[in-house]
C-alpha cells in the first residue's frame, strides 16, 4: 500500500471555487523543508550550489530554482517549497551540502497545506483580512511574508502579477481560513 491511498489533506473536499475575478483552490501536499543555518557562510554557499539558487538574504523575499521556491523566514531560516513528492530528493541534495555544518534541515511538509488565491480581485479579497500593504508598489512577485490573515498565521507568497498568491496555513486552521476566504469572495460589490 502506498502512502497516497492513506493521506488526506485538511481541505480534501474543497472544490476549486470561482468568484468574480478571483479563484480559490487548495494545492495539497506541497513539499516544505525548513532550513536553518548561518547566512553568508560556507554552508549557505554550498546549499546555493546544489539548489542552483542562492538563499535570499533580504527579508521577506523569495528566490526561484526550477520547481523550488526558497522563502526567507528569518535571518537564519528559510522554507523551501516544492511540488508534491520532491521532499526526499531535495532533502538528500541539501544534506550533501551540510556535512559537519551547524545547520538544521527538517521536512515540515505535513505542517501546512496551501491555498492558492488568484485573479484580478485576489488582492481585494486578501486585503479584507490582511493588514500588510499588498499594493504592487510594496508587494510584488518574489516577495513573501509571514503575517496574519483574518487572525490566522500564514506564510504569504506572491507568485505572479495576476496576482496569484499562495497562503501556506497550518492544517488545523485551513478549514477556517478557506471558509473565511470563500465568504470574502462572495461579496461581489467589492470587485470593480
Amino acid at each position, binding site marked *: 500500500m502506498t502512502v497516497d491511498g492513506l493521506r488526506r489533506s485538511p481541505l480534501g473536499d474543497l472544490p476549486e471555487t470561482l468568484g468574480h475575478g478571483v479563484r480559490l483552490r487548495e494545492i495539497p501536499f506541497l513539499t516544505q523543508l525548513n532550513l536553518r543555518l548561518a547566512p553568508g557562510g560556507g554552508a549557505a554557499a554550498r546549499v546555493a550550489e546544489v539548489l542552483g539558487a542562492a538563499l535570499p538574504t533580504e*527579508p*521577506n523575499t523569495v528566490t526561484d530554482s526550477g520547481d523550488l521556491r526558497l522563502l526567507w*523566514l*528569518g*535571518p537564519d*531560516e528559510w522554507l523551501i517549497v516544492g511540488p508534491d513528492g520532491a521532499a526526499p530528493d531535495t532533502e538528500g541534495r541539501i544534506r550533501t551540502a551540510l556535512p559537519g555544518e551547524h545547520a538544521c534541515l527538517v521536512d515540515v511538509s505535513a505542517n501546512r497545506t496551501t491555498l492558492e488565491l488568484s485573479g484580478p480581485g485576489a488582492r481585494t479579497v486578501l486585503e479584507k483580512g490582511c*493588514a*500588510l500593504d499588498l499594493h504592487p508598489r510594496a508587494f510584488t512577485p518574489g516577495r513573501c*511574508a*509571514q*503575517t*496574519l490573515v483574518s487572525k490566522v*498565521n500564514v506564510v504569504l507568497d506572491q507568485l505572479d502579477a495576476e496576482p496569484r498568491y499562495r497562503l501556506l496555513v497550518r492544517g488545523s486552521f485551513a478549514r477556517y481560513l478557506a471558509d473565511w476566504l470563500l465568504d470574502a469572495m462572495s461579496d461581489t460589490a467589492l470587485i470593480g
Partner: protein
Amino acid sequence: MLLIACPWCGERDEVEFHYGGQAHVAYPSDPEALSDAEWAQYLFVRDNPKGPFAERWSHAAGCRRWFNVVRHTVTHEILAVHPAGRPKPVIA
C-alpha cells in the same frame, strides 16, 4: 494600535508581536550567591517609568525574532528600535 518596526520585516501591526517586558535585565552572574530578597528583586521587580522605557518584543506572527524597543509609556511613541544584545540607545 501600535505600528512596530521589526528590524527585519519592517512596520507591522502590534497584534503580530508578543511583549517581553523590560529589556536589559541581566541574569545574575552567580545566582547561588544571592539572598532570597535579591533573587526576588531580580525575578519580579521592574522599572515603571513615566517616559521612555526599553522593553523586549518578539515578532511572534512574523520572523519570530526578539528585539528591543524604546517606547514612551505615556504617549506610546516608539523612540528607537534596537536589535537584541545591543546596548540601549541614548534617548535625549
